[in-house]
C-alpha cells in the first residue's frame, strides 16, 4: 500500500473534489425539501459515487454493544463500494480503545470514555456518537415472562446477595408472578466492556446503598458469578444456563431469544427497554462539548433507565490522506443513511441535533 502513495493521494484528491461537488449539489437541492430535518442530514449523506471513489481500507473494532448496527451499516456501505472498505471486529470497548492506542486499528468503537491514564499513540482523539440502545437485563427462567426489577433488587441480584429467584425482594417487585426457587446464575463480561461500564454506572447511580462494587470497564465480580466474552457471549451463555441473568444489548439478547426485564424508573414505573423509552432517555441527557453524553438513569417520563450511548473514536490526524477520506465518508454515511438501519436491529438513531454536531466534527479529521 505504501508503494502506491502518489496514486492514492491522487485518487483522494479526486474523491475530495467529488465530495465537494456533491456537497454543492446537495445544498442546491435543499430549498426543495427542507421541510424535514432529515433532508438536511441527507445533504451530508455521501452519494454512491463518493463511496465508490474511495481507495483506502479502514480497520475498526471494539465495543460489541453496537456490533449488530455496525455490521448492518458496513454491509451496506461496502456493498455500495463494491469492495470491503471498512471492517469492524467486535472485541470489547477496552480492546478497541487499546488497539486504537497501539494503532493496530484505525478507528475504535467504544461505549465508555477512556480513563485519564489511557494514552493514544496517534495524538488527539475525536468522539462520534452513532446510536444509542437499551442495556437489557436478560434472563433464562422457565415460566417467568415479564420480570420486573427495582434498581435495589437488580443490584442485590448482580452482587449475589439475592441468591434464588423466589427471594422475597424479587417477589415484592413481581406480585403477580410465580417465581421458582431456581438458583440465580449471574453472567457478566469477562473482557473489558463499555456495557459493563454503563451498567455498573447505572447501579452506582440508582442503587447506591446496595451496589458496592463500583463501576468501570471491568469490576471485581463476587465469587460464584460467571464470565463470558462480549455481549453475544453473555447472551449465549444465559441461553445455555437455566436460572441465568445478565446485562446485554438488545440485539444480542433477542438473537438468543431471551426474556428481558422491566426496570423501575425514578418515577416508580416499571419500564421495558422499548424504542420510545430509549428516545425519551436521550432527549433528557445533556451533550458535552466533545459530543460525549450520559443517558443513564435519565429522569424523563417513560425513559428506560439503562440506556447506553456508544461512540466511534478516531484520531484527529492520520498520515494517510486516502484513509482520512474513507473515514470521513464512512462517518458521514453512518450519521445519515446508516441511521435508518438502527431501529431494525435494536438500536435508536441519535437525535438530529446530535447528528448535526457530529457531522460538523467529521471535518476535524485531517491528514498530515
Amino acid at each position, binding site marked *: 500500500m505504501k508503494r502506491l502513495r502518489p496514486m492514492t493521494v491522487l485518487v483522494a484528491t479526486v474523491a475530495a473534489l467529488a465530495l465537494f461537488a456533491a456537497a454543492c449539489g446537495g445544498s442546491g437541492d435543499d430549498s426543495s425539501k427542507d421541510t424535514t430535518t432529515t433532508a438536511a442530514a441527507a445533504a451530508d449523506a455521501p452519494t454512491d459515487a463518493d463511496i465508490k471513489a474511495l481507495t483506502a481500507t479502514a480497520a475498526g473494532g471494539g465495543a460489541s454493544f453496537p456490533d449488530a448496527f455496525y455490521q448492518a451499516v458496513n454491509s451496506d456501505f461496502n456493498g455500495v463500494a463494491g469492495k470491503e472498505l471498512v471492517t469492524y471486529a467486535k472485541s*470489547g470497548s477496552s*480492546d478497541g480503545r487499546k488497539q486504537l492506542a497501539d494503532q493496530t486499528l484505525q478507528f475504535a468503537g467504544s461505549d465508555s470514555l477512556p480513563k485519564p491514564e489511557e494514552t493514544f499513540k496517534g495524538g488527539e482523539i475525536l468522539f462520534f456518537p452513532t446510536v444509542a440502545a437499551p442495556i437489557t437485563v436478560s434472563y433464562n427462567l422457565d415460566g417467568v415472562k415479564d420480570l420486573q426489577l427495582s434498581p435495589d433488587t437488580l443490584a442485590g441480584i448482580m452482587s449475589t446477595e439475592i441468591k434464588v429467584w423466589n427471594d422475597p425482594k424479587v417477589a415484592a417487585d413481581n406480585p403477580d408472578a410465580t417465581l421458582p426457587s431456581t438458583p440465580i446464575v449471574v453472567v457478566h463480561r469477562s473482557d473489558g466492556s463499555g456495557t459493563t461500564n454503563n451498567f455498573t454506572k447505572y447501579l452506582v447511580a440508582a442503587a447506591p446503598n446496595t451496589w458496592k462494587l463500583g463501576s468501570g470497564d471491568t469490576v471485581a465480580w463476587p465469587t460464584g458469578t460467571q464470565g463470558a466474552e462480549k455481549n453475544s457471549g453473555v447472551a449465549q451463555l444465559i441461553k445455555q*444456563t437455566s436460572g*441465568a441473568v445478565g446485562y446485554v444489548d438488545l440485539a444480542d439478547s433477542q438473537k438468543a431469544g431471551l426474556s428481558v426485564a422491566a426496570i423501575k424508573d425514578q418515577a416508580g414505573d416499571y419500564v421495558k427497554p422499548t424504542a420510545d423509552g430509549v428516545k425519551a432517555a436521550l432527549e433528557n441527557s445533556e451533550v458535552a462539548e466533545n459530543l460525549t453524553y450520559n443517558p443513564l438513569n435519565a429522569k424523563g417520563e417513560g425513559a428506560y433507565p439503562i440506556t447506553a450511548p456508544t461512540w466511534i473514536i478516531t484520531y484527529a490526524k492520520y498520515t494517510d490522506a486516502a484513509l482520512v477520506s474513507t473515514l470521513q465518508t464512512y462517518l458521514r454515511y453512518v450519521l445519515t443513511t446508516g441511521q435508518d438501519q438502527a431501529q431494525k436491529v435494536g438500536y435508536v438513531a441519535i437525535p438530529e441535533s446530535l447528528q448535526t454536531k457530529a457531522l460538523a466534527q467529521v471535518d476535524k479529521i485531517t491528514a498530515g
Partner: protein
Amino acid sequence: MTVTAPADGSPAASLLEEGAGAGPDRAFRTVTLVAGTMVLVILLLIAVTMTVRAWPAFSEFGTSYFFGTEWVPSEGKYGILPLVWGTVLVSLIALVFAVPMSVGIALFVNELAPRRLRRPVVTVVDILAAVPSVVFGLWAFYNLLPGFQTVFNGIADAVAGIPVLNTLFGPSTGSSFMSAGLILALMITPIITSVTREVFATVPENDKSGALALGATRWEMVRGVVFPHSMGGVTGAVMLGLGRAMGETVAVALIIGARPEISLNLFGVGETMPAQIFRQLSEAGALLRSALIGLGVILLVLTVLVNVGARRAVVAVDRRVKGTA
C-alpha cells in the same frame, strides 16, 4: 521436492559426473546445519523476547505475581495462582479420565482386538486427534453445557450432606473445571494412547508368551508382564498428555466460565492460563500485557518441564529395550 537436479542425463550418470566435489557437500551441510539450528534459534527467540516483555510484570509485582491468590487486573491484582490452579486442576481431571481410557484402548488394540479390527480402531483414535480444538469447543458449548448443568447439579444434590464430597461436587452452572476437564480428556486420549501403544509393543514377546505358557490369563499376563515393563514409558505418555492438556486454549475457554478462582468445587467455574491469555491479550494495557506474556512464559516453562520429563521417561524405555534386545 525442492531439490535441483541437472536436467540432462540419468540419475546414475549425474551421480558419477559431479560426485567428487567437496565444496557443494560442505555448502549443503551448512545449509542443513542452519536449518537444524533454526529450531534452537526460534525456541530461544520465543523464550528471550517473551521473558523480556514479561519482565516489567515480574519486577513490578515480584512475589505477589507468582504467589498472589487474586487475579483481578482491573483492581491491579495480578496474582497468577488462580490461573495456575485452574490449569493444573483441569489438566488433572483430564488425566484422571484420559489415562485409564488410553491404557484400555492401547491394550484393546495391542492385546485383545482381532487383527482386522486394529486398523479401524487406530483410525478412530487418529480422527479424534485430528478434530480441531475449536470444534470440540463449539460442540461442547451448544450440545453439552445444559446437560452438564443438569447432571452436575444432580450429583451435587446427591452428595450435599457428605463432607468432602459436597465441597468437591458443589452446585454448578454448567461451565466448570469438570466440563473443561472432560473435553480435554477426549482431546488428549489419542496422544496418550499412541505413545502407550508404542511402549506396550516394546514388551518382549518371549516374556508375554512365557507368562501365557505358565497358564496366566490374558489379564494376568498384562498385569504381570506388560505393566511392570511399561511403567516408565506410560508415565512418559501421561506427561505428554499433561503437557498437551495444559496448553489447550479455545475448547477450554468456551466452557470453563472465565472466572479466575481457587475453588475446590470441581463443578464450579474457573479459568486457565492459556484461556486468560487468549481472552485478554489484545485489549491489555502495558502492565496487563506484560503480566499476560508472563503467563505465557510460565506456561512455556511448565510445558517444557513436563515434556522434558516425558521424553526422559520414554527415552529410558527405549534404552532399556535396546539394551536387552
